[in-house]
């Protein structure tokens, strides 16, 4: 489902004397449907960079990323946007929403965007918000005013609303209380059972051991390090 081959990435800082910072060299791995692969490596090894390249948010300098048969490298913006709508979900640690849009709508949006009925999308959104213990009194409010933890859970609800065939999880259980952590872990297990190919970063070692089938050490792809 997800194939990464010969991936290379460096950042060129034009306004700091053209400094070139190499981050990845010949990174490669694959993820099958229903499989969860955890990216590991020390802080700064480039785990988040890999996730962002997979999402089309960062440009790679070399190599290929194919998700659901779509080649991301050199793809047109509309190709990537269609992929994100229909195939590829991303749960980041931070919520970015339009001001004024109610929480229920924020969570229902991914399903609406794929053409599901208003009723089905809202039902799914209600279900997820209850499971993640967001009080119903908050559903009609914009999440911009919520606490950090609440925002994170709204973001998780949104990320799991639609059953994407491929899913990227950036520390989904970070700073959650044990009850909500358990909910998120079961959401991940459900997504796997539904056949999603998942790539995740989990600093939570127990969580990683429970949901990940394999680990890929991103440190192996640090440039200048002999393999």
């Amino acid at each position, binding site marked *: 489902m997800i194939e990464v081959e010969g991936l290379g990435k460096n950042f060129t800082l034009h*306004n700091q004397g053209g400094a070139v910072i190499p981050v990845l060299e010949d990174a490669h791995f694959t993820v099958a449907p229903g499989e969860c692969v955890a990216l590991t490596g020390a802080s700064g090894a480039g785990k988040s960079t890999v996730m962002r390249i997979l999402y089309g948010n960062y*440009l790679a300098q070399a190599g290929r990323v194919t998700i659901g048969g*779509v080649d991301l490298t050199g793809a047109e913006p509309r190709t990537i946007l269609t*992929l994100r709508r229909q195939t590829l979900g991303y749960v980041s640690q931070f919520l970015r929403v339009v001001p004024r849009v109610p929480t229920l709508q924020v969570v229902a949006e991914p399903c609406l965007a794929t053409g599901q009925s208003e009723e089905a999308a809202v039902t799914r959104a209600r279900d997820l918000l209850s499971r993640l213990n967001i009080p119903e009194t908050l559903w009609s409010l914009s999440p911009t005013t919520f606490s950090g933890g609440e925002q994170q859970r709204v973001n998780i609800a949104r990320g799991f609303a639609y059953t994407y065939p491929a899913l990227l999880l950036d520390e989904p259980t970070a700073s959650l209380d044990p009850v909500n952590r358990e909910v998120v872990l079961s959401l991940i297990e459900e997504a796997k059972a539904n056949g999603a190919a998942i790539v995740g970063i989990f600093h939570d070692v127990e969580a990683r051991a429970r949901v990940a089938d394999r680990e890929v050490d991103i440190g192996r792809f640090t440039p200048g390090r002999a393999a």
Partner: protein
Amino acid sequence: MTKNQNIPERPPLLEVHDLTKNYGARTGCADVSFNLFPGEVMGIVGESGSGKSTLLNCLAGQLEADSGAVMFDTRADGPRDTRLMSEAERRMLGRTDWAFVHQNPRDGLRMRISAGGNVGERLMAVGARHYGDIRSAAEDWLTRVEIATDRMDDRPAAFSGGMQQRLQIARNLVTGPRLVFMDEPTGGLDVSVQARLLDLLRGLVRRMGLSAIIVTHDLAVVRLLADRLMVMKDGRVVETGLTDQVLDDPQHAYTQLLVASVLQV
């Protein structure tokens, strides 16, 4: 490249080839080419004097370009170069399939006729004659842009800046255009009013499946509204791509400077 089987390939709504406009020896915009597809929203960013407004005005036929082509996929005859159309044809396009939202609502509104009249006028320009229909369409659109219908008979001069801007948007969208040009649509408005307007624009664009080209210097505006970005400097396009990719991983020196210069709130 592998194509996603789920996307039926539609022809571009707008195809721009090597569009150039000079002001004497000075460059307005040079060799600009791009395709805009149905339902796509493109942002054009760059500092003042980068040529973004010149480009927008050339695209919309408000300024005459020196060379290049602007092909629009017309309903009747398919793609046609709007630069070669007659003035009458271009004006008709400007009243039907195209809309232009100006930064200053006074440039896009008739200040001496009522709010309802401003919306109704554009409908009449495309042949609507039944007073009751026109009035109810105007009412419907004022509601959609969150202007109370009891303000329908007031002149725009009595409205706040944010209301005037929303009225201008209603006037432009009432005829169901396929392509909307916007020049700094949130410029000069309070931040709170901007947020409301952005939310409104985003909803309208998505619901109506509009294509839009938005010129702004505000990167937060394009992040919310635009699918893709074009970055201009000295009249030339220096970088293009998916909006979040250009903002989060800018490749060109100028884009890096632009992104790094935004104050964090």
